[in-house]
């Protein structure tokens, strides 16, 4: 199921069958480079199966616009020759798509058992305190969003924090959260440890 910071998920009143209406947003069209890139992606699947590229298409929207809007989904549908409903079906299911504006740094803290055993709950609380945010919120300056994620698949380097769906920070501690936040403000994603097996390349 898909969860996003600013949607009212998790409340007793929310029923999964309720139609998710994304904000319409500005008119959207891919930049020429992105359109070409997506066309290349479509070529990796059988020609009558452009729909397979829908996840790639949504990532490109997110790269261009920061989050998904109904206009963007409509454009994706036209590009892939599928209906807007089919795009919305997918956009509302997968967790890594943002359906409202997010901060510059989306801190995605793993909360599942192995990370929790290593103290992830306290990491989340520490970040929550330092940033003055509840889980799921974005700060007023638009710099940080704090969310929880399920098992990120690096349990030996727990607790793990992913940032912006792409960057990686390992062995976070409640004590080091203050410094992490300050470092992110000062140096951006260079402040993150990266994947410890990955450190010497990329």
């Amino acid at each position: 199921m898909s969860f996003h910071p600013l949607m009212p998920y998790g409340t007793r009143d929310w029923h999964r069958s309720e139609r998710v209406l994304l904000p319409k947003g500005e008119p959207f069209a891919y930049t020429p480079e992105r359109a070409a890139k997506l066309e290349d992606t479509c070529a990796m699947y059988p020609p009558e199966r452009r729909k397979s590229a829908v996840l790639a298409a949504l990532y490109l929207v997110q790269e261009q616009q920061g989050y998904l809007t109904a206009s963007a989904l409509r454009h994706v549908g036209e590009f892939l020759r599928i209906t807007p409903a089919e795009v919305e079906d997918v956009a509302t299911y997968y967790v890594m798509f943002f359906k409202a504006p997010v901060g510059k740094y989306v801190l995605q803290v793993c909360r599942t058992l192995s990370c929790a055993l290593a103290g992830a709950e306290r990491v989340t609380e520490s970040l929550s305190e330092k940033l003055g945010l509840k889980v799921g919120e974005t700060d007023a300056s638009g710099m940080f969003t704090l969310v929880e994620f399920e098992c990120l698949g690096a349990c030996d380097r727990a607790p793990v924090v992913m940032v912006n769906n792409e960057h990686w920070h390992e062995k976070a501690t409640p004590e080091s959260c203050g410094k992490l936040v300050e470092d992110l403000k000062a140096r951006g994603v260079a402040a993150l440890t990266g994947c410890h097996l990955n450190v010497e390349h990329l």
Partner: protein
Amino acid sequence: MDPVLTKYVREPNSYTLDFFLKHEGYAGLKKALAMQPNDVIEAVKASGLRGRGGAGFPTGMKWQFVDKKTPNPKYIACNADESEPGTFKDHVLMERNPHLLFEGCLIGCWAIGAKVAYIYIRGEFFHVQRVLEAELAKAYAQGYAGKNVMGSGWDCDIVIHRGAGAYEAGEETALIESLEGKRAQPRIKPPFPAVEGLYNCPTAVNNVETLCNLPAILINGADWFAKLGPEKNGGPKLYCLSGHVKKPGVYEASMNTTLKELIFEYAGGIREGHQLKAVIPGGSSVPILMPDQLDIPASFDSVQKAGSMLGSAGIIVMDETTCMVWAAMNLMHFYKHESCGKCTPCREGGDWLFNILAKIERGDGELRDLDLLTSVSNNIAGKTLCAFGDAEATPPLTTLKNFRAEYEAHIREGRCTVPADWRGQVLVEAGH
């Protein structure tokens, strides 16, 4: 047992094509291309290789079921969606030995007659994907993938397909649905993917570690592979140790190794000053084993005989500071979040199991909640389209079975009776 899969993972540049080629790289593929596809399948069958994704289904048998008579194209779908809590072995393999995976995919394609292998990699592994993409480009450039693979005249493509955050996409039919551009929801089986899979064509869905074992089987022989472990549990195995151990990590060993050895020798034992309380041997979807049940080989068959499953070999170790009610609740949050929503028992039951556990954890529990946990769990397990339902029902059932007294104490005293300093203060419901 000398490491096979992870022999060079700590060496710098082990991920590069140059390094790979200097260490028997693509030698397995070369052998395969000189064999008849059916003989490759026979070799894999003879080796006894069992799927490393969680089910342990014999790979040779799975390939044999692939319908080769149809004129439709065949596909290999590599399941790199590793999302089972406690599992991170594919993460290491893909990041440190991507060419081994490519070689495995190509061998698989040759064996079943496929011309494309789709590597479905979970969206959260983007840092791994970058390595895969860079190395795949090099493999293409030097003729190890694409047109005329290794000069054999055979063409085969490898496509990397990024997921977007869905544990259920690890289920083989849900993975296929996701590859087709839909929600990652499972299909009813039969028909099995080997007959009707991706785009309704015969597809073999194989785990990363499974595919990574293929080159060694072809280079060293099926016999060698089968003899590395107990009967019907052969080959090197990657074990993921995490939780309250001194040295969490991926450890490669034969399946003769006992769970006790893995925890106390390989992973250095429980952290200082603490004692073992419970172990989940195969990722969160399998039942708990107690400390006196660990003197068994960590093989598919032995762990199953002991009442659990080896699953994805994600060994989560919990010491005495772990409240089992809290642990079950933590896992139920995972399952209720990840439920794809297709089957009513799983979709609705998962929510309710979490709510009941949260109620107990908060201190508002009643004894009849335990009966409710049991009955709801039993109404999910076995009543869903895929094994997620069985997995979802497991944490409440297994913790109740082994730690009922702890649940009752929680309820009686209206509070957690096993507090720990590493736990948070606030119960976060679902504020994502």
